[in-house]
């Protein structure tokens, strides 16, 4: 959309917007094309931590002033968030560990804020970054970076296993791995359990590995697609500079309106994805803290 992008090849424009500001940790230089593991997406990390610190700042400030008087402004809003998450956790699992609700709240607020960066017009911050700080690339939406979404979902995965071990113990967990969902309790067919056990283990492994993968890919996919469509609409609108005054009005205003419409639609996706990530995390952790044998 910006004037500087108008003459550029639209393909490189799109790629430029989907490339992270990547720091090669071997050479300590910006190298957006680097494919190795020891690199850091500075832009994603910076914005993720910045947003995280912003919400933590507000939450801890309210927590320090917490009292039983009439809540005001920010206090009210934060208590609303807390109550919302607390109710979700209570509904899903009434006897959840005290960690679950704060974890869910952190996920919800953080993912929500990261997703909301998508609403910032796509060229503003990269333009400032390029002109003021001389940064070659800048992606401001951390949740469109698959490393960020996997970083969170793998942490959740680790927590699921910590919960599993803490609540069921190694033996209970092993028993669950071997005997769930297929198990013959008695009768002449008991011998078949030998065959069923490997099946159970494979099913369980697929089930557990699917959890972090689906969490990360769902969030990444939704936000990446949203971002890509913003970029493509911007490419469409950039035709405004190539077709005279009529093109300027048509593509410029049309593109602007399409951007607005997509942003409005995206406002639905943003909280929904944050909510889905949170609820699924709560469900997984609740499942990890209750053994299947108790349910039957």
């Amino acid at each position, binding site marked *: 959309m910006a004037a500087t992008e108008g003459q550029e090849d639209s393909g490189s424009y799109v790629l430029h917007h989907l490339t992270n500001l*990547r720091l090669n*940790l071997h050479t300590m230089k910006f190298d957006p094309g680097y*494919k*190795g*593991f*020891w*690199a*850091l*997406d500075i832009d*994603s*990390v910076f914005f*993720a*931590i910045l947003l*995280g610190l912003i919400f*933590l700042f507000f*939450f*801890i400030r*309210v*927590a*320090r002033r*917490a*009292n*039983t*008087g009439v*809540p005001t402004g920010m206090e009210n809003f*934060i*208590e609303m968030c*807390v*109550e919302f998450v*607390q109710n979700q956790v209570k509904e899903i699992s009434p006897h959840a560990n*005290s*960690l679950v*609700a*704060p*974890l869910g*709240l*952190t996920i919800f607020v*953080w993912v929500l804020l990261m997703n909301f960066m998508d609403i910032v017009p796509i060229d503003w911050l990269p333009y400032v970054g390029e002109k003021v700080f001389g940064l070659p690339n800048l992606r401001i939406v*951390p949740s469109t*970076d*698959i*490393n*960020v979404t*996997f*970083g*969170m979902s*793998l*942490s959740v995965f680790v927590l699921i296993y910590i919960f599993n071990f803490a609540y069921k113990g190694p033996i209970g967990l092993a028993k669950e791995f071997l005997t769930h969902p297929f198990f013959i309790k008695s009768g002449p067919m008991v011998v078949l359990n030998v065959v069923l056990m490997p099946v159970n283990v494979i099913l369980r492994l697929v089930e557990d590995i699917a959890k972090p993968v689906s969490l990360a890919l769902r969030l990444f996919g939704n936000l990446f697609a949203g971002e890509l469509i913003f970029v493509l609409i911007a490419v469409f609108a950039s035709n405004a500079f190539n077709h005279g005054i009529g093109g300027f009005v048509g593509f410029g205003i049309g593109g602007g309106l399409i951007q607005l419409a997509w942003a409005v639609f995206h406002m639905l996706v943003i909280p929904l994805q944050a909510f889905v990530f949170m609820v699924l995390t709560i469900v997984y952790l609740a499942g990890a803290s209750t053994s299947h044998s108790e349910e039957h």
Partner: protein
Amino acid sequence: MDPNATLIVQSITFLVFVALMWRLAWPPILGAMQARQAKIAEGLSAAERGEKALKDASSKSEGELKAARAQAQEIIGAANKQSAQLLEKAKADAEAEKARILEAGRAEAEREIAQAKEALRKQVGDLAVAGASKILKREIDAKAHADVLSELAAQV
């Protein structure tokens, strides 16, 4: 879309944020909210209790008022009765007094009548003596004819 160290940084940051939220932010906020909830519940129940007490007190005061009214009515009745009795008594006394005074007056009048009669009788006797002596042209010895005279007087 290549995995890199961002993953590790993000994981650690995430866990740190969760820990901070869990330890620093969550307990005071939730505690305050629960305390406030308890306070509000207590306030509501206190209001309910107050309302009930008010209702009790008003019904009690109504009862007292009714009792007081009844008592007042009773007192007024008694007073009325007493005043009627007093009036009755006073009337009776006055009646008796009147009768007594009348009786006294009548006795007095009778006595005076008797006196007058006596005096009249004497005068008649005297007159009769005077008349007889005039008729006889001589003096009648009043002393000699006293028995005759008194007999005459008694006949008048």
